[in-house]
């Protein structure tokens, strides 16, 4: 019981910090709310899909920006747009915000700026991934310990 309590507290702390640091926003809470008996792994599923998708997109961007000359900014922009859409959908606020900045550089066809933004987006993405993965781990631990996931505020 103690362990469950502790884990639950940890879980709440972690998820509060996610919100506080702006890594996720209310949209993520929205997702969590969507999870019920019918779709118990909904959040993990969506987020995994997001990870998969994002990594592909990030790779695409990196590859497109590797060219010293003649970068296809349209393609990069399309990828950024995709990433922005999906990150906004799962509530990955910081990734989304980084994408917004990224797009302005795409429009300006500024390769330097794009590369910087890509770095930033990648950074935010890995931060998000880390944090979410530990959140999910906590979740599993709680479930394994026989507790229930505390409801996010």
């Amino acid at each position, binding site marked *: 019981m103690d362990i469950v309590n502790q884990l639950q507290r940890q879980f709440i702390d972690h998820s509060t910090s996610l919100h506080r640091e702006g890594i996720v926003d*209310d*949209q993520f809470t*929205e*997702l969590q*709310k*969507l999870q*019920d008996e*019918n*779709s118990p792994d*909904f959040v993990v*599923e*969506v987020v995994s*899909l*997001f990870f998969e*998708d994002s990594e592909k997109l990030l790779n695409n961007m990196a590859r497109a920006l590797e060219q010293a000359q003649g970068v296809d900014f349209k393609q990069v922009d*399309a990828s950024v*747009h*995709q990433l*922005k*859409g*999906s990150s*906004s*959908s*799962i*509530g990955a606020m910081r990734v989304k915000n980084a994408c917004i900045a990224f797009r302005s550089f795409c429009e300006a066809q500024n390769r330097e700026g794009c590369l910087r933004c890509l770095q930033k987006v990648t950074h935010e993405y890995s931060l998000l991934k880390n944090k979410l993965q530990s959140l999910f781990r906590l979740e599993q631990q709680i479930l394994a310990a026989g507790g229930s996931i505390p409801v996010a505020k």
Partner: protein
Amino acid sequence: MVCEMEDDQIEDMDVEVLSSMWPEDIEHEAGKQFKVEKPRGDQDMLEEVTIVGEPTIVDFQHLIELTNYTDKGSSQLAYLVKHWEYKQTNAVRLLREEIDNLSRQRQESELKKLEILEEHRFEEERYGGDKRSISILDGIYDIWQDVPRRKNKIVVPSKRVEIDAEYDTVIYWKQRAMHLEKMLEASMQREQLLKEKLQESIKNLEKQSSPVEELSQILKRADNFLHFVLQTAPVVFGHQDKELRYRFIYNHFPSLQEEDILGKTDVEIFTGSGVKESQDFKKEVLDKGLPAKREITFETELFGSKTFLIYVEPVFSKAGETIGINYMGMDITDQVRKREKMIKLREEIAVQKAKETELNRTIHITEETMRAKQMLATMSHEIRSPLSGVVSMAEILATTKLDREQKQLLNVMLSSGDLVLQLINDILDLSKVESGVMKLEYTKFRPREVVKHVLQTAAASLQKILTLEGNVADDVPIEVIGDVLRIRQILTNLISNAIKFTHEGRVGVKLYVVPEPPFAKETSQRVSDGSTANQSTTNVAKEETCTSMSQTSSDQRGYHGKKHEGSCQNHSQSEPGTPVRNGTIDATEEQEELPETTVWIRCDVYDTGIGIPENALPTLFKKYMQVSADHARKYGGTGLGLAICKQLVELMGGRLTVSSRVHCGSTFTFILPYKVSLSCDHSDDPDVLPDMDDHGAINDDATAGVFQFQPRTLGSLFCSTGTSRTQKLLPHNIGYASSYKLNVLSETCYSFPTSNGRTKEMDLVEDACSVAEAVEISSDPESSFSHSPDRENRSAICRDKHHQNDVDAENKASTRDVSGCSDTSRDMDVKMKISEPQLPPKRQERSDSSSQPTINRRQEVSDSVSKPKILLVEDNKINVMVTKNMMKQLGHTIDVVNNGVEAVHAVQCHSYDLVLMDVCMPVMDGLQATRLIRSFEETGNWDAAMNAGVEQPLPSDSSQQDCTPPKRIPIIAMTANALSESADECFANGMDSFVSKPVTFQKLKECLEQYLP
């Protein structure tokens, strides 16, 4: 003899060696020193070059003296001499070696000769007396005769003769003698050769010049070279003595004669700037004894403006004293000019760069600010949607059965929610105005109505014993054109502010036309007139005794907030429901002859409140500023209200000012320009004036310019005189008496007082109801008021309707989007249905062409109980997943396609009840897809889609297509940018509404509730 010969030879050799070695040495040593080329080569070279004139002016005597007395001069001479000596010794050494060589050879040959002679002697001794030998020797002797005698004074042959005489001849010996003779001959020949060489050497020696000549030649050559090199160089060099008098000067472009320069100093020769400086500089070098360089710009009559780089070095005597200077100057005018130009350019570039960075920074900051503001706006927007969900749900909750405690809690919750919403709206407004996004929407409106409604609203939420009064001057036009929403917002804000800070007395609004204020012409001038007039009004108001009554029902609080917003929202639509008044049409309309003129209307909002200390006035309109922290605690609020008012007023081209006296009250004044239209055709603006059938009634109502709300009942005592001339028909005491009862009633039934049967009171109640109901009731015969003179009838209706009014008021309150776009009006509709499912949608939709069919559709669909088919068009997998799940939660399954083309295909094949359409998609975006679908609905064919390149699939279920006539499918855009431009675009392309991304459960729910039965 031998010695003699050797000496002779040495002399010979000497000459020979000298002639070959001497020139070579000169070449090397002299070449190194003076960089002189081979004499023969350069002689030709220099012959081609014409060395012009004699630019050098030399004081020869001084030069000699110099060479004698200066270290440099003497050392140079000494060097030359030493050099010559060295060369000579070297030559002597080489000659000696040669002599040694030759003498050795000579000795050898001498030895050989002796040997031969010995042999001969021996033979002579052995074979002496041989006569034949004489003849041979005679022959040999002949040969000897040819040899020059000078060298052969040796008496060898005589000896031989002697030998010959002694020996007798033998053949063998003869032969031998012959052999020896030959060897001797060879030796003789060698000697001969050497002799010739000697002769030659002697001749050469004679030709050889003396060392002095040699040296002067070298010097001359060097001199020539110097001239050659310097002939066009822009250099001047010279020597000046201790007194800086010129002793020597070289100047290729002499502008002065020798006698003008030599023996004179710089200052004696030139005049102008720079001369003194150079003189001083030379003196300095002379004093310091150290060489130095300096750049001096001369500005002389002689050669104009020129810059010289001057090198000055001191000249020392052997004793080490300075006896003069050598100086060298080079004209670098052009270079200096270039350099200065470069410096200037560089400076300019630096300045340019600095400016550029500054500019970039400013741009950056501006961009940042803009982004921050936009961010704020977006965030506020995003916060607002979920919050409105919370508040509206709470409101719905309030309609359910709750005990009193729960209701109280709920009310606190609602009022807090309202506060937050208000705050967010304020922030949004402010950031909109600041970022220039705020767009004013000009519509026709009636100032009297606005004043009345604002006061009504304020009265409805009044929790204090205050008199609210409005006074619209007769000269104010009945209808003016302006952004009524914003004006109402300003008015509401000012009035609620006034109420907040007024504990007793009155709060009022005065409207009257003023001439064009000075700031309109000269923007800098401030308006200060009229403040005294206001002050007097305030004072008068204060004199009136105000009755106080305690009203502490917490029920009212929540109610006020809701009502406030609700009626604000529906202000323009409430006109049909307002009571009909008798009155005369004001003449103002006739006065305006032009179709559109501008009228300036001044609005004073005065109160008898706590007033504002003078020192707080300057910061009053600043954001987040309140008079003091103490005030903030006591009265709450964000301090945004006045800032917004000011910005809005200024945005509309007006001025907001304040005058105040502590403890007496404040007056906020805003003057705004309005357009006045003469045309009576109101149909162009159905939004604002939806029901214009009864012009007479409206005009009657519109002319009522004086309103008063006494602090009687729940603040809804409304007295309106038929015309502006008569005032205060209702005596105060009636309100007094009844209010008590009302209060009791309010305790029991939580909101409006209902059945007290007193006509006068019902009048008040009815008025309040009518305001609240005005919109909803307009098209609903059941609930509309007929303002008949029969008061019993009215009260009865009012009684019946009371509860419903309550609910309606709340429903309205649930939609508090200030913007009041068509979107929200539909929201209201939806919510009403949630709370009162028994009521059909009775509110007329705003005259939005798209909404009319929606209602029809809704009824159709509600008839058939089939499950609605929903299509989601979205390319982002994650978004699809999330939306799908949300839909599942809402009990819907959806079809998903990934782009516009697929969407068109899907619509071609199936009939959908709702399409959720992403705007930004690959292949075909949502806007185009919507256009194509709309085109199909209008024309009944897919030609537009075909034209756009979308192939029509084989009609798999063509029967369905045939049987169902194209009906308008609600298409909801899902857009990432919630800015108004994007929304406009959506509407322009035929979409019915839009949901901003990320899609939330609440948004989706609202949307479905609105568009699906």
